[in-house]
C-alpha cells in the first residue's frame, strides 16, 4: 500500500503489452481510470504471484471455482461478514484487486507483502502464522444482497434476482449482530491460527474500506478410519454432511452447487450461493434427552450415522419405509425425513462453535455455524420451509444468525477476485 510496494512492482518492468495480455485491455482501461498505475500494478503483479504447487498442505487459489467450497472440509474456520465503506464501484474493484495477491500469498503459506528494513513502521504481515505451513488454507469471497443496494456503488442492475435476504423461517430468532453483511470472507484451514490470520490480514489491509459486521470461528474434528476421512460429527454427536454431493463428481456438483451459464447474471457462472446460519444448540437439554429420542429427532442412528433401521451411514434413507404396524420407521417429524421430503439438495460445509456463555441463561453459547453451498438459494429455502414448525429438532436449536452471499466464480491467473462482476457492463 505504500509507494515502496508499487516501486518494487515497477522494478519488475511489466510492459504495457504484458499487462494487456494479463488482464484484457478493457480491464486495464477501467482500472487505470479508477486508480492510476499504482493500483493496477499491485493488482496485476500476479505473474509474480502464483500457486506454489510444491508447498506442503496447499490448496490452489486459482481455478475454475473458488477454493473452500468443493475442497475437503478442514478442521477450522474463521468466517467474517463485512460492511463496505468504499463509495464507488472503482474503489470496490480496487479492494478486490488488492486482496487477490494477499490471498495467493497466504494460501501458499507465505507472509503477505514484502519484508521491509524499516523498523519504524509496523510489519506488513501481522506475523502469527510465521513458521506454520499453508495448512490447506482456503479463502472464499462472496457478496451479499445489501452490497447491491448501495446506490453509490452502482451495482443495482447486476444483482441476481435470487440474491435476496433469506425469508423469515418459523422459530427464527435472528440477532442483528449475526445477520447479513455486504461481503463475506470464509477462511478455512487445518489450523485455527492460520484461518484467523488470513481474515485478520485481509481486513487490516482493507482498513478504512471495510468494517467488520460479525464473525464466527468454528471447528471440526474429522475421524480417520483405515486411512480414510470420515464424516465429522456436530456437537449433538451426529454426523453432519452424509448426504453431500460427491465433490469430485462434476455432474453432481453442477447439478447442486455451481451456477451454470444462463442460470443467473453472467458474472455468477461458475459461482455459487453461500448460506450461513448461526444455530445455537441447546446442549443442556439435548444431553438429558434419551438416546432413542435423539435418534428419532435426527432420523438416523447416532453412532453409525445410518438411517434408522439400517446399518451403514451411506445406505439410502428411503423415508417411506414402514414397520410391521404400518408406522413410518423414520419419524415424519424427524429432521432427515423433512429435509429429504423437500427433494432439494445442497452441499453442507458446517463447523461447530463455542463462544462462551449465554448472558441470559448461563448456558453454553455453542452450536453450529451452518454453511451450505447451492446454485440457487431456493434449495436451502425449500428445505428450511419443509422443516418448518414440524422439525423435532426445533426443540433443541435456535437460529440466531443468517446471511446469504453470492460467491464469485474461480479466479484465473492474471485476473482478480470478482473480476466478472466489474467487467459486466
Amino acid at each position, binding site marked *: 500500500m505504500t509507494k*515502496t510496494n508499487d516501486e518494487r512492482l515497477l522494478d519488475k518492468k511489466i510492459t504495457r503489452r504484458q499487462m494487456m495480455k494479463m488482464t484484457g485491455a478493457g480491464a486495464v482501461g477501467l482500472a487505470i481510470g479508477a486508480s492510476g498505475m*499504482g493500483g493496477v500494478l499491485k493488482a496485476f503483479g500476479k505473474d509474480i504471484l502464483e500457486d506454489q504447487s510444491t508447498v506442503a498442505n496447499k490448496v490452489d487459489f486459482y481455478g475454475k471455482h473458488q477454493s473452500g467450497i468443493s475442497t475437503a472440509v478442514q478442521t477450522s474456520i474463521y468466517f467474517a461478514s463485512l460492511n463496505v465503506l468504499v463509495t464507488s464501484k472503482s474503489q470496490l474493484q480496487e479492494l478486490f484487486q488488492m486482496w487477490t495477491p494477499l490471498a495467493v500469498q497466504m494460501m501458499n503459506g507465505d507472509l503477505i507483502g514484502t519484508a521491509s*528494513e*524499516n*523498523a*519504524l513502521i509496523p510489519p506488513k504481515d501481522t506475523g502469527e502464522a510465521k513458521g506454520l505451513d499453508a495448512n490447506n488454507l482456503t479463502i472464499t469471497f462472496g457478496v451479499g444482497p445489501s452490497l447491491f443496494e448501495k446506490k453509490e456503488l452502482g451495482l443495482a442492475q447486476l444483482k441476481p434476482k435470487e440474491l435476496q435476504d433469506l425469508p423469515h423461517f418459523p422459530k427464527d430468532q435472528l440477532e442483528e449482530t449475526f445477520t447479513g453483511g455486504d461481503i463475506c470472507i470464509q477462511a478455512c484451514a487445518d489450523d485455527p491460527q492460520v484461518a484467523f490470520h488470513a481474515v485478520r490480514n485481509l481486513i*487490516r489491509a482493507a482498513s478504512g474500506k471495510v468494517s467488520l459486521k460479525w464473525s464466527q470461528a468454528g471447528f471440526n474434528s474429522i475421524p480417520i478410519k483405515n486411512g480414510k476421512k470420515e464424516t465429522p460429527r456436530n456437537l449433538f454427536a451426529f454426523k453432519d454432511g452424509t448426504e453431500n454431493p460427491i465433490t469430485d463428481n462434476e455432474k453432481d456438483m453442477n447439478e447442486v452447487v455451481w451456477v451454470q451459464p444462463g442460470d443467473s447474471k453472467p458474472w455468477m457462472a461458475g459461482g455459487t450461493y453461500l448460506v450461513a446460519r448461526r444455530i445455537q444448540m441447546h446442549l443442556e437439554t439435548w444431553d438429558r434427552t434419551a438416546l432413542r429420542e435423539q435418534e428419532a429427532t435426527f432420523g438416523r442412528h447416532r453412532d453409525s450415522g445410518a438411517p434408522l433401521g439400517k446399518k451403514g451411514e451411506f445406505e439410502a434413507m428411503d423415508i417411506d419405509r414402514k414397520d410391521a404396524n404400518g408406522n413410518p420407521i423414520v419419524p415424519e417429524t424427524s429432521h432427515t425425513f423433512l429435509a429429504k421430503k423437500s427433494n432439494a439438495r445442497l452441499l453442507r460445509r458446517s463447523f461447530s462453535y463455542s463462544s462462551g456463555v449465554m448472558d441470559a441463561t448461563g448456558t453454553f453459547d455453542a452450536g453450529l455455524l451452518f454453511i451450505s453451498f447451492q446454485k440457487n438459494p431456493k434449495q436451502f429455502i425449500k428445505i428450511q420451509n419443509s422443516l418448518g414448525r414440524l422439525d423435532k429438532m426445533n426443540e433443541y436449536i435456535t437460529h440466531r444468525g443468517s446471511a446469504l452471499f453470492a460467491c464469485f466464480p474461480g479466479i484465473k491467473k492474471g485476473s482478480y477476485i470478482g473480476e466478472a462482476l466489474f467487467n459486466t457492463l
Partner: protein
Amino acid sequence: MKATPFAAVLLAGSILMTGCNNSDDTKTSSAAKKEETTTSSTNLQKEVDAYKKFALGQMDHFIVETDKFVKAVKAGDIKKAKEIYPVARMYFERSEPIAESFGDLDPRIDARLADLKEEGQGVEDWTGYHKIEYGLWKENKTKGYEKTADQLLADSKELRARVETVEVTPDTMLTGAVDLLNEVSTSKITGEEEIYSHTDLYDFKANVEGAEKIFTILKDQIENKDPKLVKDLTEKFEAVNDLLAKYQTKDGGYISYTKLTKEDTKALSEAVNHLGEPLSQMGIIME
C-alpha cells in the same frame, strides 16, 4: 496513562526509545533503530524542533490551567474546579508522548485507581488529577483534597521543567502519534479514563489533536515519499474530527461519555482504527 510505569522507568534513561511498545520485537531491533534515528534526525531537525516547541507550549498552558484548578479546589469552588478539570487535562493529553516520558511523574499526575491496583498499590498511594476527580464528582467535595492539589501543582511544575531536558527524536514523534491513538482506542473509547467525571471525550479530542499536530509537522516529509498517504491521513483525521464535532456542546466542550450510545462509540472506535492504520505508516519518512 501508561499501564506500565515500571517499564517506563527502566526506559527513562533512553527516552528516545520510550514508545508504549514493549514487545520483544522492538527490543531486538532497538539497536538498529537507534542508529537509524540518529543518522536521520539531522534531516528532521526542523520538525523535531517544531514538535518540542509545541510540547513545551502545551506544558506551559498545562501549568497555568492546573494552577487555576488547584486554586479552585483549595477555595472549595467545586463548580469552577469541575469546569477547569477537563480543559486543563487536554494540554497534558495533547503532549502525552512527551509528558509521559517520566515514569515516576506520569503516575503521580495521571494515575487512575485501577492503574495503582495493578501495581499492587492502594488508595493511600493515589495522587493527582484523578484522585481529585473522585472527590469532585463522586464525593462532591474538595475538603480533604487540598494537599493532593498542592502536590499536583508541584508535580506539574516539575514535569514542565523536565520536559525541557527531553531529547525529542523523530522516533518520539512517530511512535507518539500512534500511541496517542492507541490511548484513545484502549481507554478513552471505553470510558475507562474518566470514570467519575465522564469527560472522556475531552481526552479523546486532545489525543487526536496531539497526533494530528505530529502529522502536520511531518506532512511535507511524508508528501515527498507518498502523497497518497498524506491525502489518506487528511481524510481520516477529518472523519474522526467530524464525528467528534457531533458531541460538542455550545461552550466548546463535550457531552458526557455516558450519553453516548453503543452505536456512537462503535462509530468513533472504527474511525480511530481507520486512522491508526495509515498513521502507523508515517515511518516511511525514515526510509
